[in-house]
């Protein structure tokens, strides 16, 4: 084994900086949060409390409200981001190289922009008195909506923002996957009389399955971790209408200073995401071969 590593040492050296950062900023905090979830954390001296934090989580109404809100968000945002990426990539793919580059860059640009900036812009769009959304409605004689400040509309507004933000990364990944599908498959289908839609449905879509699976998993993780949009647009309100799991974890940890309890909620989130990813992987996985 060591021989093999030594042989490929240059490769390992290239990925080493990334793994050092990963260990410091991801792996160690995850391990630490597992430990802390069994403790009542104090700045000076902590106390081991066993499963008490987990018991509290299961009896915390606010946590379950946050779970419900997060599910509502994820159920809409996850499929919509994957489907919109697929549709947009399918529309861009047949274009000429110049046009493809233009649209690829245009849709990827919002991904580069900070989610803070995007959320601030959307907060203005949804502003009750002067916002663009209500101005648009007024053109049709509709009554203004209190977008971010009514229980009925607050979560819908956050979801609308997420759905209307272009899924730049998904588009790029789908385009790359589409480019790798052998042209001969489409040529054969054309000879057999298949039109463009049938080709897309019978060839493109099945062969994009691995990319779709990856995007679904990544999008599910992202949806379950929604935080900054909520924090900036509604702060979890009104009431607890937009409080999500991560928002709740943040408040409990950094405002209430209950790190053990926050750790237990994080473990719940971790297990939920892993379980969902495994289910998605099981349901959607399957060998894909590009047979010429």
């Amino acid at each position: 084994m060591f021989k093999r590593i030594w042989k490929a040492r240059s490769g390992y050296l290239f990925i080493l900086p990334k793994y050092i950062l990963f260990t410091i900023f991801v792996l160690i905090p995850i391990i630490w949060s597992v430990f802390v979830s069994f403790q009542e954390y104090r700045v000076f001296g902590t106390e081991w409390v066993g499963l008490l934090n987990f018991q509290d989580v299961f009896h915390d109404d606010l946590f379950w409200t946050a779970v419900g809100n997060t599910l509502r968000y994820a159920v809409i945002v996850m499929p919509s981001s994957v489907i919109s990426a697929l549709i947009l990539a399918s529309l861009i793919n047949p274009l000429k190289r110049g046009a493809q580059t233009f649209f690829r860059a245009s849709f990827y640009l919002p991904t580069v922009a900070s989610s803070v900036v995007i959320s601030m812009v959307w907060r203005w769009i949804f502003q009750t008195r002067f916002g663009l959304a209500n101005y648009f409605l007024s053109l049709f004689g509709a009554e203004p909506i209190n977008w971010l400040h009514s229980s009925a509309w607050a979560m819908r507004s956050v979801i609308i923002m997420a759905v209307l933000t272009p899924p730049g990364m998904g588009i790029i990944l789908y385009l790359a996957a589409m480019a790798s599908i052998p042209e001969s498959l489409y040529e054969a289908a054309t000879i057999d009389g298949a039109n463009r839609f049938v080709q897309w449905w019978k060839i493109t879509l099945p062969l994009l399955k691995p990319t779709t699976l990856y995007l679904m998993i990544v999008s599910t993780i992202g949806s379950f971790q929604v935080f900054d949009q909520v924090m900036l647009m509604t702060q979890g309100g009104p009431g607890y209408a937009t409080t999500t799991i991560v928002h709740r974890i943040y408040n409990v940890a950094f405002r209430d200073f209950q790190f053990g309890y926050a750790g237990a909620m994080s473990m719940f989130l971790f297990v939920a995401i892993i379980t969902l990813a495994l289910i998605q992987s099981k349901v959607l996985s399957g060998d894909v071969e590009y047979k010429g």
Partner: protein
Amino acid sequence: MGKKLSVMLVLVLVLVTSASAFANWTGTITLWDAPRWRDENDDQFHWVKAKIAEFEALHPGVKIELIETPWAELGEKLSIAIAGRAWPDIVPVDISGAINRTHLEQGVVEALDAYMTEEELEDFFPGALQAYTYKDKLYGIPMSMTVHVMLLNLDHFEEAGVEPPVDGRWTWDEFVEKAKALTFDSDGDGKIDKYGFSTYILQGYYEAWPFFYMDGGVPLVDNTFGFTSPEAISAIQKLVDLKFVHGAAPVEMGSADVGGTFRALAREGERYVAIQPWNTWAIATVTGEGVNHLPNVMVAEYPVGDLGKPVTIGGAGGWVVMHQSNKDKRDVVVEFAKFLSTPEEQYTFATEYGTFPARKSAEAMNPFADKPHMARAAQMVEHSVPLPEHPAWAQIDERIQAELQLIFAGEKSVEDGMESAAAQIQRLLR
């Protein structure tokens, strides 16, 4: 005799050693501060920078590192720093928010009693000291005191032909009548575009709360939730009715953010609300230069309800010294905190920053001689009540404010909202 002499010699040696250690301590003190008033270069940290330069000149080898932090981020950044045990040495917060009773119990903050002489303590207003006292220990040096007041845009009053309250005093009924008269269609398009009153409901903010006290209700009584009392319900209902029954407040009352609410009162080009409650810092903003300068402004009391007297919520600001493992450094950090809190500095804060001094000697310098609005606000200190002291206040506050948001959005009745808050809070009070 020889034994006594030896003991004396040892004592002298100890004193000399510790004194020289104190004098010789060198190193870096980390200070977090947030924006204050601007100078001619638009620098909002000029005051603390000048104080740092003075202190460093007096203490060669001591360097003060200033971390400039926006007020809005100070609490969260401090909580994260505490969690990571990487806190600053000195920070301008009270002990009811980012620093709270839990931190005090855990020893994150230094108690300063040993550093304050009787004479020094005598110079502070009792309310200011009380705000930094927990279990009979002083956990900060008070720098300023604040109250909430009502700010009135008198141009709006004039446009509506409404007389402002005489000497800023009014009953609830008078307040409602004026707020209604101040609500009108100013451009003749058939839509109301000017409103009498507005405020917001957010966790950690208490501009609206004095209204809830006006009939005699209080949030916590003997560790029991008090906003379910008839007095509190009636007071909250009155403010809700101002929006939904009297139509004297815009739809966003109770739900807008801090900046949006303030712009509705003061921002040039917006200014569609005549009356809003604010902390006293806002007086300096609306009477100063810039886009938020209100040419004709008045400071008024909260309206008087069934309690028979106006109520306001007061607070205190000051410097907190975080836990120091090195005693010599702690001495210098505390000295610096005291250096920032002298009567002269508190006078400067009062004249420039819109706060009330926490020290009697600073108050005696008459900082508001040429600031009638601040002088008027200072009269309201006698009506101020503090927020409840409870280790879980941040969580209790979150539950109450969440229900208030729904009440002011018209989604819950006052009774249902407060009953729901009571059910959630009961567990925290146990």
